[in-house]
């Protein structure tokens, strides 16, 4: 990994740390009672705050995880640095697309 990837990975990690704490709190709170789709949707629907929250989370996680997976591939797979980078880019984009799709589903639809 070089300094550019490092900065992105650590910055997104630092950014996600509080987000994950909130997320875990929400999960703990939500699982208190039996969860229904309506419960989830009623909380998230049309909430710009939640949209932003999860939007940032998705963006950060995509960047963070793809760089992380790249490192793992470099070290643990026969992939070359270049190959690992490409694979990771695809993974990152896929993650972002799926993630934004989910956020869109929960907030808008």
């Amino acid at each position: 990994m070089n300094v550019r990837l490092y900065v992105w990975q650590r910055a997104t990690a630092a950014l996600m740390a509080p987000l994950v704490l909130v997320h875990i709190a929400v999960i703990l709170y939500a699982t208190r009672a039996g969860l229904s789709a309506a419960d989830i949707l009623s909380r998230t629907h049309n909430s710009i705050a939640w949209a932003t929250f999860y939007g940032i989370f998705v963006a950060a996680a995509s960047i963070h995880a793809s760089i992380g997976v790249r490192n793992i591939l470099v070290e643990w797979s026969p992939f070359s640095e270049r190959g690992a980078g490409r694979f990771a880019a695809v993974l990152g984009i896929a993650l972002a697309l799926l993630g934004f799709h989910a956020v869109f589903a929960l907030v808008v639809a």
Partner: protein
Amino acid sequence: MKTLGPRGSSLWIAAIIHRLSGLALAIFLPVHFFVLSLAFHGGARLDGFLRWADQPLVKFTEVGLVFLLTVHLLGGLRVLVIENFDWHDGQKRLAMLVAAVSAVTAFIFLMRVF
């Protein structure tokens, strides 16, 4: 322990758990997103899924995922602390603490789910 050599120490184990949890999260995250996007098609499909997800096995994996997230978070914080703050002794204790906190979190979650 001895034959593991450098690989036996709690610090090394902490790093490996952090990596494996990150990897597991990276694999789980797309699945998780997919499940959530089912909501795109209205609450019904999601409800169906959530009922399916009520099964103990599924619940158990979800517990595992929260556990992973917590472990990874704390492990990540450990790395960020090492990298960005002045050095202090007691790194090993920090690693143990990370393991303990994540175990407790997962346990609480477990209690709540079942």
